[in-house]
């Protein structure tokens, strides 16, 4: 009996087909006669085939690695999968996460709002807001018309519907006021500081600049002394001290202030912004500087904003006067060129101005 070593070598030789002649015949004979030897051969062959499978796989892998290394991977990559821009890649990668996050956020917010009763409230809130907005627009544009009806019952016998202020343009009875003061009026009267009322007629109106020129047609009216003030053509500087006289009540009221901006409401170049206390009834009042030049005419104030009144620049008053066809006038309208207020104290200025400033009553 051969040793295991010898048998193994024999099988190896057999599998490698190195056996020949009588040795091979003997080997075949032994396999047939001895099943355990046959088993051994089969077992050995399986193991060796396992081993050679391993070998061929290792070889295949190394061959493939060699081929792989010879390839230009980057070029193939560019061909099969063109590089997409980074943001698109990120988007593609995270779009589902984003969608989920957005949904979660949406649900969370909705739930929060729902639980806090936001939705039930919001309708009325919106309406309020809208209403306030409309109101604020209305109010900010609200002309300083004083509703005389609001006054206590013990007022004058025949109170006008609305009131404003006007002032003389010339000594022969021409006045200027705001268009909105006399807009839609049946009849207009003016009343001076002494309480005398005169009927006036509207001879010119300029809704764009909110100006109206009136003429006193009342036969009782006596010519005024020559005007103490002039109209300033140039634009006044911001910071200039100004004052106004008006009829927010049945008496002339002086208000002091300064020009706070070169332009009016929402950038309106026709007007100044003036920081001055004005109230309904001040509309149409003259805005004068310290030297007694009329630099504007008060026409409105902004609601909800402190100290923001607006005054039409005096140059537009002059333009309006020029625009009146002179031959349609009964009497010539000559704008005063001499100023007698300069250098006076405010109280003297007020005294001198009093007769030229009228309350405009609209029926």
């Amino acid at each position, binding site marked *: 009996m051969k040793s*295991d*070593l010898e048998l*193994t*070598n024999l099988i*190896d030789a057999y599998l*490698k087909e190195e056996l020949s002649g009588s040795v091979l015949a003997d080997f075949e004979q032994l396999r047939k006669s001895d099943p355990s030897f046959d088993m051994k051969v089969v077992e050995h062959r399986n*193991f*060796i085939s*396992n*081993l*050679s*499978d*391993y*070998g*061929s*796989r290792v070889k*295949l*892998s190394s*061959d*493939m*690695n060699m*081929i*792989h290394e010879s*390839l230009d*991977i980057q070029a*193939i*990559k560019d*061909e*099969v*999968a063109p590089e997409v821009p980074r943001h698109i890649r990120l988007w593609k990668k995270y779009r*589902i996460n984003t969608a989920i996050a957005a949904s979660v956020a949406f649900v969370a917010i909705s739930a929060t709002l729902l639980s806090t009763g936001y939705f039930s409230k919001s309708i009325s809130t919106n309406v309020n807001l809208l209403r306030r907005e409309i109101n604020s627009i209305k109010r900010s544009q609200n002309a300083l018309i004083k509703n005389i009806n609001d006054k206590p019952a013990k007022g004058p016998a025949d109170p006008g519907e609305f009131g404003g202020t006007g002032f003389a343009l010339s000594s022969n009875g021409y006045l200027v006021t705001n268009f909105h003061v006399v807009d839609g009026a049946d009849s207009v009267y003016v009343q001076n500081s002494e309480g005398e009322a005169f009927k006036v007629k509207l001879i010119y109106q300029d809704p764009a600049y909110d100006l109206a020129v009136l003429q006193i047609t009342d036969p009782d009216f006596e010519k005024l002394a020559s005007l103490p003030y002039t109209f300033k053509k140039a634009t006044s500087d911001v910071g200039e001290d100004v004052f106004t006289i008006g009829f927010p009540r049945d008496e002339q009221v002086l208000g002091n202030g300064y020009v706070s901006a070169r332009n009016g409401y929402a950038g309106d170049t026709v007007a100044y912004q003036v920081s001055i206390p004005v109230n309904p009834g001040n509309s149409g009042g003259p805005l004068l500087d310290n030297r007694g030049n009329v630099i504007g005419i008060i026409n409105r104030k902004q609601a909800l904003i402190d100290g923001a009144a607006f005054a039409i620049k005096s140059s537009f008053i002059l333009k309006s006067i020029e625009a009146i066809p002179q031959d349609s006038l009964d009497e010539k309208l000559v704008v005063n060129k001499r100023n007698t207020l300069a250098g006076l104290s405010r109280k003297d200025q007020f005294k001198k101005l009093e007769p030229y400033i009228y309350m405009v009553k609209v029926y």
Partner: protein
Amino acid sequence: MKKEVKSSVPADSEIVLGILNDSKEILSRLYISYFPMVLQLVLKNNGNEDDAKDVFQESVIVLYNKVKAGNFELNSKLKTFLYSVCRRLWLKRLNEQSKTIRNIQDFSEIIAVEDDLEKHEEKDRQFAIMESALMQLGEPCKTIIEDYYIHNRSMQEICEKFGYTNADNAKTQKYKCLQRLKKLFFQT
């Protein structure tokens, strides 16, 4: 954005013949022809080029084993076969990495390759065991075994290479090594 990858592709029968003859040239052409397709598949589905390389090489091994097993019948295009194998392998690997992919982006038709992959897995296990057994075997046994059984060198060559005084000594050494290898192989 599906894009067919075009290149001069060897005929399928040519490849099968080449595999049976261990033709390096055919392997190379096979590789060049079909690797881009797999690269595209893997890149578009959350992988990188190294993943593509591994997956593709594995699929080639599957193909080689299938062809060499003898009973190879070409009942689909080789391209479809390789693609299907790679697709399955890649999905499996993604699954192992616990990366899920909702919609795999396909670039070719696919066929069922589950049987082939089962066989492959078995082979793969054997391969891994053999690899580790050989690693544990140590030198010079490993080289002797590899030279004799894998590279088919004669006992005489081995004898000279390792400086054994005669072929019998070498044979004894080889026998001992083989016994140890078997022991290592079967105990795992």
